[in-house]
């Protein structure tokens, strides 16, 4: 088995990941790379690395917790609120259309 080619293919596949999942993929590929000599000698199995890589590609990393979604939505709303406030201010400063 050409494990270097497998590693390269996983690296290319992982390039679709973003954010924390991309960092996880980089870490996983780094560990896989370090383990390559031992894998090639048959000392350890490549299976856990392959399984982890497929899981990571499948779910894109850890699910985002509810509080992080809420924080993201709150930030977006705050920016919209800021523009709302300016629109109201404009109406006062320049009445009419």
């Amino acid at each position, binding site marked *: 088995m050409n494990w270097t080619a497998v590693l390269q293919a996983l690296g290319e596949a992982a390039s679709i990941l973003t954010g924390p999942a991309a960092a996880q993929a980089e870490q996983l590929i780094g560990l896989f790379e370090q383990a390559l000599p031992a894998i090639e000698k048959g000392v350890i199995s490549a299976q856990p690395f392959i399984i982890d890589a497929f899981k990571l590609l499948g779910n894109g990393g850890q699910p985002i917790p509810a509080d992080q979604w809420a924080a993201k939505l709150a930030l977006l709303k705050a920016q919209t609120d800021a*523009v709302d406030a300016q*629109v109201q201010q404009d109406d006062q400063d320049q009445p009419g259309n």
Partner: protein
Amino acid sequence: MKRISLLLGIAAVALTLSGCASLKSALATHVTNPLNDQHVAAIGDALGTAQAAAVAYAALPLCPKGTAPAPASTCHDKQLLRSIDAAMHAADKAYADLVTYQQANPQGSTVVGGNFSQLLTQAQSAIGALTGIEQAYKIGGA
């Protein structure tokens, strides 16, 4: 007797066909969410960037009345900002709907109905409408 058998036969065929149609319909409406949380979050990041540009535009002084909105202006146009504000509200709503759906139906979950792709398309087009205005008027370096 023959007539009864014939009627029963027709009824059996009709039931079978209607069963197939229901099954087909049920299979057609079951979809698997293909998107992971990071993908949905990245869409939100794009919206956040577009919104930040709008906030910066709103912070410019108000253009004098009668000035036509122009690209890369050093003041903000009242009507243009109204349009941007409306686009931001639409994008916020569409993205919040997508996030709510994603939280309830994470990647890989099978759900009834094709709502997911519809919500994704709505969010993307709402964000596209906002960035479209910004690009047209060169707001936020777009």
